[in-house]
């Protein structure tokens, strides 16, 4: 999952730095992700993982790092499996 997330981040977050150099907890907004880019990232993640982020997850904290994105996706996929 990590690799797929990083792949989507690399493609859509339009960061000023190389995604490979970022730690899982690095702040993507501080790395240059604009709000517009974050919307594209959300859409791309929904597409890649075949999920829909509910409105309660559409907040800054959820998309601010690779690990926070992972936590949100895990929550959604475990809900789907249950």
């Amino acid at each position, binding site marked *: 999952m990590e690799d797929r997330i990083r792949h989507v981040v690399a493609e859509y977050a339009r960061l000023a730095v190389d995604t490979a150099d970022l730690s899982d907890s690095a702040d993507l907004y*501080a790395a240059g992700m604009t709000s517009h880019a974050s919307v594209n990232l959300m859409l791309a993640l929904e597409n890649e993982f075949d999920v829909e982020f509910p*409105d309660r997850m559409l907040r800054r904290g959820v998309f601010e790092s690779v690990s926070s994105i992972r936590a949100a996706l895990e929550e959604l996929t475990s809900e789907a499996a249950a």
Partner: protein
Amino acid sequence: MTQTADQSRTFLDGIRRIAEDVAAPAADEVDREARFPHEALAALRAVGALSAYVPRSHGGEEMGFGEIASACFELSRACAAAGMVYAMHQIQVAAIVRHGAGSPFFDQYLADLVSGERLIASATSEVGVGGDLRSSIAAVTPDGADVVFEKQAPTISYGEHADDLLTTLRRSPDADRGDQVLVLTRGDEARLEQTSSWDSLGMRGTCSPGYVVRARITPEHVLPVPFAHIAAQTMVPVTHIVWAQVWLGIATAAYDRARAFVRGQARNMPGTVPPAATRLSSLAAELHTMRAEISTATDEYASMIESGADPDDLFTLGYAIRINALKISASERVALVCRDALEICGIAGYKNDTPFSVGRNLRDGLSATLMIANDRIHATNAALLLVHKAG
């Protein structure tokens, strides 16, 4: 909210008196001469209104957000320039109260704001970023133990009349454009060199020319939280709400003049309802809708920040869409209301020297869609709506 109903009433009664007795009589001159509404600001200082939002822990009155918003409305009904200056100052105060309190430097600043009733301006716009609040070119640049910056600001409202200044900057010379911080400069820590003039259609008394801002300060002048958080949780919602209250004040002033005009007509023809009264009825409905929308947004924000909940849970993408929509709607409505008031008052409204003149209101109101251009806000909301699920 910890102030009592009595304190809240006393505060707003004081603001209303200043609006009627001080701001209103000067409003035409402020507009005509494009001069700062200094008598209104002096009166506001005298009653402690500039620091009213500061918490009691820092010596302030801890007035609620709703009261501050209403004060913007009351002042703008009399003089939109005075109301806008007060509103913009409160945006800066809210940013420091909500994101600076707890740092020794900003705790001390808030105490000084209360004792000195200091007026704070802001330098958030920048030449070269195309009106994007969330991008900066100028950066906080370390220089020995100090930091320095130089920013080209296309407009700083009341920059010449403010005591202090909040400026958005990139965090460091190698930071991305969107990695911003907010920096306070006190008094002559910042030197402002005026680069353009302010001879505008309306809002003339806000005195908003362009400047180059240069400063050398210590690093603790930087607010300890990323500007992204300050913008999402405080600056954007507070700006849209207090501006909307200013526009509601302008619209209400125009409506008041239209109503007085129709009443005068009716007095001259007892027993008949003047034709313009029907137009006044639609205007009243329009104003009512505007007021309802703005007061709902004001109450919602006040209850959000007073709930003590985690800001990240409150300031969702859905909220951003709603608060952007408020800006679009209120800014479009103010010009419509003023325009309809002009139709009702006719030539008496078109002339600048009658009790029914609405020219100043109309010109002031036309600034609303341009201050953070609605096209830009539509573009943002269009993008956000792509991922938002609820209506």
